[in-house]
């Protein structure tokens, strides 16, 4: 490998929020351009979120230490902070360790809430920006594309992201276990606290039809109703409207229970026993715990929901070991690809592939023409192999010339590998949304050759 992958970064584990905010990148695109201009790197990409800053760079043929120092120096200067403080709080990885780290981040194994999906979206955004600015080239392209597919594989093959790990998400999951599809259900917020608002947002996103907001301060209820698209009411009218809703989220600051079991009993009669789900996230609690003993009524308070979240978190940690095994395996595969970016292994792969095709075609022809003597067989074999090798002379010559040019070796080798599909990748027909769904079977290609030749003549 003549190009080194270097990754430096800091996250919630290595640096406190006071440090993270100092070294957060406000203008990532300008930062990437600056890195390309001032550091010895061929390619780079930066990611800056509230929990982490990551800089991935592909170093030129200069000593690793030199590149690392220049990256740290440039980062510290860009943030107007001391490089010493940065060095104390960052991690540094090179080559396959860096690859492993990128995959780990993409799979959300390194996130504060393991398995959360946001990091993958943030990584995709950062990559898109780097591609648009031209700072992501062959290796970063491949690394990021691979990291997205590894993340997808981990999500499919493990249960790392399958369970709720936030209070509001747990509430939605529980509601789905009671009502099934939340389409057409109605919710009520009793008290307009921040957590209740978050839970209501989650419910609305998951199909809840509309929300009634009952609050002591009507102006706040109105304000929240406008942002959520619900109906504001005075808290005094809450009991008259309770029978209309399926889900109740309560978060008032009241020192006594706002909703009592006997009231809910009457509400149930009005609703003809249609189930109700009460979420009490207030402390002290707003809803009489006896409500849970009524048939068709389910009550979860903040501790119950926290328990659900903690249990799910523990389950995610168990799944993490499976996910790490996938990451290890994919890192190894990526390592093979990195090594293949040299000219020599590519030539060997090219020749192997074309010899394999020649041999298969020869066997087909021999089957068609029937038995032939040894001499004819050898002559035919020499012929097909000679045609195969000769057809590779020009492509190999081209690659050899290009790899002598500064900065273009990987690009052309990677292109040749993809053109001849040397890594035996299966590209699904819908891999490129902006392209036509053309099939690439042997028959199709044969037809295309015939049509093209006929047109030419």
């Amino acid at each position: 490998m003549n190009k080194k992958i270097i990754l430096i970064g800091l996250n919630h584990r290595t640096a406190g929020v006071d440090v993270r905010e100092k070294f957060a990148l406000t203008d990532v695109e300008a930062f990437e351009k600056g890195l390309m201009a001032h550091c010895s790197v061929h390619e780079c990409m930066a990611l800056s979120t509230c929990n982490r800053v990551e800089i991935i760079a592909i170093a030129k043929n200069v000593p690793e230490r030199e590149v690392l120092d220049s990256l740290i120096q440039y980062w510290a200067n860009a943030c107007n902070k001391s490089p010493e403080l940065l060095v104390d709080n960052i991690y540094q990885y090179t080559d396959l360790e860096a690859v492993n780290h990128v995959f780990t981040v993409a799979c959300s194994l390194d996130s504060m809430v393991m398995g959360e999906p946001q990091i993958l979206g943030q990584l995709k955004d950062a990559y898109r920006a780097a591609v648009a600015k031209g700072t992501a080239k062959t290796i970063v392209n491949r690394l990021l594309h691979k990291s997205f597919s590894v993340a997808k594989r981990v999500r499919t093959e493990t249960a790392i992201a399958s369970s709720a790990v936030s209070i509001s998400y747990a509430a939605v999951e529980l509601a789905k276990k009671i009502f099934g599809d939340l389409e057409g259900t109605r919710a009520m917020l009793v008290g307009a606290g921040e957590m209740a608002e978050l839970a209501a947002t989650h419910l609305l996103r998951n199909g809840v039809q509309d929300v009634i907001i009952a609050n002591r301060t009507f102006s706040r209820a109105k304000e929240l109703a406008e942002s959520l698209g619900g109906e504001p009411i005075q808290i005094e009218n809450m009991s008259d409207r309770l029978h209309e809703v399926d889900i109740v989220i309560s978060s008032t600051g009241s020192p006594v229970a706002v909703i009592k079991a006997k009231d809910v009993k009457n509400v149930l009669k009005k609703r003809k026993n249609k189930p109700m789900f009460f979420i009490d996230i207030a402390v002290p609690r707003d809803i009489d715990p006896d409500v849970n003993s009524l048939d068709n009524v389910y009550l979860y308070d903040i501790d119950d929901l926290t328990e659900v979240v903690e249990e799910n978190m523990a389950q995610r940690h168990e799944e993490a070991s499976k996910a790490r095994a996938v990451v290890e395996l994919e890192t190894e595969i990526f390592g093979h690809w990195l090594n293949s970016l040299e000219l020599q292994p590519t030539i060997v792969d090219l020749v192997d592939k074309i010899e394999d095709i020649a041999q298969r075609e020869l066997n087909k022809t021999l089957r068609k023409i029937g038995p032939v003597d040894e001499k004819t067989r050898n002559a035919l074999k020499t012929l097909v192999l000679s045609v195969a090798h000769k057809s590779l002379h020009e492509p190999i010559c081209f690659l050899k010339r290009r790899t002598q040019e500064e900065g273009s070796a990987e690009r052309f080798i990677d292109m040749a590998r993809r053109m001849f599909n040397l890594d035996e990748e299966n590209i699904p027909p819908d891999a490129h949304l902006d392209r036509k769904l053309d099939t690439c079977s042997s028959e199709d290609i044969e037809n295309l050759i015939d049509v093209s030749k006929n047109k030419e003549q």
Partner: protein
Amino acid sequence: MGLFESLHICIIALYALGTILFLIGVTTNNEKLKRIAVWLAVAGFTLNTADLALVLGRDSTALNAGKFYFNILAWCVLALYFFFWWRLRLEFLAITALPLALLLFVTSMALGGVRVIMPPELTALFFGLHIGSLVLTLGVLMMAFGSGIAFIYYNRKIKTKAGLSSIGKDVPSLDKFDTVNKWAVTLGFPLFTLGLFSTFFWYLIAPGKQFSWDIMKIGSLVVWFLYAFLFHQRVVLGWRGRKPAILAIWVFAGMCISLVHHTITFRAMP
């Protein structure tokens, strides 16, 4: 081995394999196994249909003899299961539908069904109304039984805050289980009423038959009253969830006892 024997062995094998795979699929949370089990049930059901068609094709009087009522019942259970699967996406009910279909099919092989001697002119009416509606009722009650047990179990899990992971990711919602109960009540009760009272009516019109109260008829009527209570509470008073689930289990148990009692009585005195 003749065609029928081979067919029966295939049906039993498919139902048994489907049952085992579905149970393993549920315990290990393996979606693929569950899917395979359902497709095995589809294959078994297809063969079961072919078996019934062949029997009737060969001898149309087979229905009069009522030799294969348990076989029809097994077929009916799966037909209703597929209906619920289609309408409610309730694959989960295979947990009761498959073992019950297997049990009924094996029973039909072992017992040969109920033998009823009927006057030929009333056969179609009697079979169509009485047996047909009772078979369908039993089918929907089996679904209600399965969903009732599932409802009680998962309702308890949610009420006692056992956690989402212990409930299982792919387990249907309580509302879906309750919907099965609702359908079993609204469809099953009129069918059962039709099935039960058509036999009383048959006694009135059948020559040489005298209606008299016996333990069999009283037993059937007790089950009907229990079912009527469930129907009233569910449809008129709006019962939902746990209570109708428990009642449906009792009605199903009553129906099973009544069926076994009928079988024994008719075998001893056709």
